[in-house]
């Protein structure tokens, strides 16, 4: 008896047989003309590719993409992102949720590594930016915990550590993302940086950011002050918080050792000197963690959990409960879990068509039925894997 018949009877055939078209080979990629993410709808645009607008791309979406994807778009001279179900479902809930006075709604995107969680967050973020929301996005928290450029003992939060360099980088990124909205925002109370210097109430957010960029020592304090302002709930527009790899906030390990601050121990001071400095002791990360709490109104939080945030550990886990641990799960509970699934047959077929059409798949085999079936099989529906493997074909 043939192997294929045996597999047919046990229904173990790959669903990617549908990537093979009846005509054979690649066909035209299905693109939509709708380049505004907030106008995408579940019944019309799912599974289609859209071209993000230049302003949206530069300000928002670019930060959510992997460097390899950004480089691919630069080389090809064109950009196309897929509209998928998780981002549209979250977008619909957020559109209803805004301005209700309800507490912060939290979504946790989960899925295998490379399945497309960050890009879904990027779609939601750029849709909210078009609706006029304030965006607070953190992309590199797990990298901040792997390497420390400068680590100082914090003045505004004793017992914790400031990462001044990352604070400055984040403030610049925040300003570039919200350039249209920030001129209208004012600080409601006086911010005291130290005993002598303070910024008066009523000054604009831009002044606070400029002060912190000029005085990097106070960049983390500035981030904390801005987040306090957001949590008061008195801003004229809702706030969207996007946090990539959120599980690193509750992780017990990091790449920063306690002796990174390089000072001599005080008399009688106890070790451990080589213990890891976790997110609880970093002011910047703790500030963003406060935004993920549900004790503030007029906003929402979308975060993802990934094995990348499980530093040096649990590389095969991808479920939220395992990655967040007891503490993280208790902090975030209740949240809305959103599964980012692998590509289905139609999505995979569309993606392969686009890669062929844009000229990235240069091999003749990639346009044939057998080649497409093999690409689908090797990547197993994982978007990131397909991107990596397609570089070879």
């Amino acid at each position, binding site marked *: 008896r043939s*192997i294929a018949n045996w597999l047919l009877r046990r229904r173990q055939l790959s669903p990617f047989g549908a990537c*093979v078209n009846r005509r054979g080979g690649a066909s035209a990629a299905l693109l939509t003309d709708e380049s505004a993410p907030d106008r995408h709808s579940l019944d019309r645009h799912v599974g289609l590719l859209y071209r993000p607008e230049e302003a949206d791309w530069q300000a928002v979406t670019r930060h959510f993409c992997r460097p390899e994807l950004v480089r691919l778009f630069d080389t090809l001279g064109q950009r196309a992102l897929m509209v998928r179900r998780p981002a549209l479902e979250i977008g619909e809930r957020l559109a209803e949720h805004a301005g209700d006075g309800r507490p912060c709604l939290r979504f946790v995107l989960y899925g295998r590594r490379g399945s497309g969680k960050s890009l879904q967050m990027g779609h939601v973020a750029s849709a909210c930016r078009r609706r006029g929301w304030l965006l607070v996005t953190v992309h590199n928290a797990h990298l901040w915990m792997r390497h420390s450029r400068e680590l100082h003992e914090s003045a505004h939060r004793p017992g914790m550590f400031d990462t001044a360099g990352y604070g400055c980088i984040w403030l610049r990124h925040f300003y570039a993302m919200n350039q249209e909205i920030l001129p209208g925002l004012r600080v409601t109370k006086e911010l005291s940086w130290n005993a002598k210097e303070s910024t008066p109430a009523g000054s604009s957010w831009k002044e606070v950011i400029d002060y912190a960029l000029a005085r990097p020592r106070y960049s983390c304090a500035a981030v904390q002050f801005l987040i306090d302002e957001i949590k008061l709930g008195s801003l004229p527009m809702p706030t969207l918080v996007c946090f990539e790899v959120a599980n690193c906030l509750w992780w017990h390990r990091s790449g920063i050792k306690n002796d990174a601050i390089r000072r001599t121990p005080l008399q009688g001071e106890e070790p451990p000197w080589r213990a890891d400095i976790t997110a609880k002791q970093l002011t910047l990360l703790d500030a963003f963690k406060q935004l993920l709490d549900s004790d503030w109104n007029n906003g929402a939080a979308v975060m993802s959990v990934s094995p990348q945030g499980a530093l040096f550990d649990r590389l095969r886990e991808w479920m939220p409960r395992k990655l967040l641990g007891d503490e993280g799960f208790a902090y975030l509970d209740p949240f809305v879990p959103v599964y980012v699934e692998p590509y289905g047959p139609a999505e995979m077929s569309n993606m392969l068509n686009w890669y062929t059409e844009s000229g990235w798949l*240069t*091999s003749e085999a990639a346009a044939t039925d057998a080649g497409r079936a093999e690409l689908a099989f090797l990547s197993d529906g994982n978007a990131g894997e397909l991107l990596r493997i397609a570089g070879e*074909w």
Partner: protein
Amino acid sequence: MSQLLLGYASRLLGCQSRSGSAATTAAAAAILSQQPVRHKSPLQKVRKRGPFPEWTKTDPDPHLFTRHIPKTDERRTKAVRPPGKYQIFSVHYDPIVNSFAGHFVKCGQRDKLRDVFTQMMAEIKHIQMARRNAAPPEEKASIEVDPTRVIHKAVENCSPLLIIKHVFRGGFLYKVPCPLRESESQMRAFKFLRIASNVRGTKEHLYRSLARELVNASNNEGKAVHAKLQLHKTCEENRAYANYRIT
């Protein structure tokens, strides 16, 4: 493997396997047209030694042959060389790229090298596409973007025709130019490319330096092609001793 996938696909879509019987007949004809081994009975074990015909890229999946062949058929006992260890029956398989990868393997870590080569071929595409975008319209068509073809051209440009062999004769060591087998010439090309892409320290990843070197070699520039030309020059200088060749 590719035929199996096609079979699954066509059954799933509900259409007939269009190419099944035609391919099998053609492949059977190709195999049968080769000289068969003569032995007493069809079931007797084959004892003849090589050179056996190789499995080539155009042959279909070997599993297809064991299904409907009767026991007395000579295809069951025909002597054919088994496929190589890293030979894949895939539409994307290329023997030169495969051998090139094998040349770089250290401590048996070929799977690690697979990732390096995937990145390297993507890097070749990036380099060549950037070059093509910047080139004037009349030159655009001549820039090769496919990484497999770039590797083929680079290996061809780095393959030496002659090599220096040292012959000790009459108390003197002579450098004798000798011809090369094709496989040895290919190996020399791989070696030139590997040494040319070696970057000291951690300044650059292998995939990046190797991609750059391959692109340069396909344009007849760079360190690897220079090494080959130096070798040819030494052979030319020592052509008087060509008759000292041993083999």
